């Protein structure tokens, strides 16, 4: 039994609530109506396209196509991470790409092979949505990790350099910045694991139940996916900071100012 299909008309009926929202925004002079409408249109178009090419990917179910699609997703994730972290794409694309690729690949295939035990590890139905969930969550944690780390050192450069002179080595001088940014990046997921089920029902579980799964199966999947998300976030954030150090600092361990996108 699958979820009941929605007609376009039924979907559009949700825009009934958009009218009071637009009205209130206008009355309160919030100036966010244009952004809001643009975001809703983008969401519909992007998801519409995703729907189309997911149908295509599921139909062909080709390992090469599936892998290519995941690689493109990782590249787009890198671009988004670096833009949001105010770091230059040209300088840090490869460190971020590999920091995502390595834990993502290991955990995704472990999930498919050892947890849900599917025969075809490249099965689009599992590979693409689960990969998308892992990537989507990593995006946020790497952005928090990288931007806190580099902006923290940039803001605090005199203190960092002074620590470098006192400790005599870069690792010791970087330790507090790493610690602070890493904790900030993984805390949201740790907090969400602690409250899940109490204050929120996750989208994946809801989707599965609507799709016809019995709640206990949906819950097992949810636990598995939450843990996988956490592990991927954890390792990719550590690696993103570690891999970026080579470009982020010059030969004398001084922060390389060229990695930042200049403020306009």
């Amino acid at each position: 039994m699958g979820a009941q299909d929605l007609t376009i008309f039924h979907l559009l009926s949700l825009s009934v609530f958009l009218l009071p929202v637009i009205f209130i925004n206008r009355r309160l002079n919030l100036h966010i109506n244009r952004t809001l409408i643009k975001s809703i249109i983008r969401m519909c178009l992007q998801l519409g396209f995703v729907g189309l090419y997911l149908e295509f990917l599921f139909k062909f179910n080709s390992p090469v196509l599936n892998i290519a699609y995941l690689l493109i997703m990782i590249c787009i994730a890198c671009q988004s991470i670096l833009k949001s972290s105010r770091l230059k794409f040209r300088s840090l694309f490869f460190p971020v790409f590999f920091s995502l690729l390595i834990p993502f690949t290991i955990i995704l295939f472990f999930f498919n092979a050892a947890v849900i035990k599917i025969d075809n590890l490249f099965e689009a139905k599992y590979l693409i949505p689960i990969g998308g969930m892992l990537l989507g969550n990593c995006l946020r944690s790497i952005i928090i990790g990288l931007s806190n780390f580099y902006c923290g050192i940039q803001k605090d450069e005199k203190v960092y350099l002074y620590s470098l002179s006192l400790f005599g080595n870069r690792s010791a001088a970087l330790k507090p910045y790493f610690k602070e940014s890493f904790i900030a990046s993984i805390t949201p997921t740790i907090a969400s694991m602690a409250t899940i089920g109490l204050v929120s029902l996750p989208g994946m579980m809801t989707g599965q139940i609507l799709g016809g799964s019995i709640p206990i199966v949906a819950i097992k999947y949810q636990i598995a996916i939450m843990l996988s998300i956490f592990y991927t976030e954890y390792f990719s954030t550590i690696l993103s900071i570690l891999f970026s150090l080579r470009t982020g600092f010059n030969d004398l361990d001084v922060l390389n100012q060229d990695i930042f996108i200049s403020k306009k």
Partner: protein
Amino acid sequence: MTKTETKNNEYIKYRGIFLNRNSKSIFSDLNLDIFKNEKLLISGKSGTGKTTLFKLLLGFEQPDKGCVLCFGKPICKENIPQIRQQIFYLSQDIDLKNTGTSQLLDEILAANNIEQQGAYKLNDLLSFLELDSSILNQEIKELSGGERQRIGLLICFLLDRPIWLLDEPTSALDDVMKQKIADYILDQDKTIIIVSHDEVWKNDKRLTTKRMG
């Protein structure tokens, strides 16, 4: 390091340094030699590159042209960790990271593998610097300017490195303490460069003087 000490005991050499920052020339063909156990006072107006001399030696800044040698070794990727471990730098604003004072001292001593020697000397140095041991329980940001400066000097004396770069080391101290610290510093068998506008350093025969700008 002793093997690499150069002839004539030249510990630090600035050779043909050119440095421009924001279209302003800071150094134009600067040459300077500092010898083992020399005590050098650098004076001059603000913006003449006094602090930059320290930053060049620590590798925090790189010259546009010329080179800096420490123990006969150029400042480069391979040498910089060893060189930094031989130099103590007291920055003008004492840019210590904000944490508990005791924790900071422990971390610095551990990173330099001198936990035992450091702990042994700590109480004597606290009393010499007229700091109450309760200061160890305070956060760095809670300390006054004078206390921060004395904590900076405490770290200097604990680390006991062969080269000291002291940027305005006595600016926040009272006159009696200034004299006490200056006498202590100038009696050390260390190579010491001081940037200061304080009267206490002027006309002291233990110091050689270089005027910048």
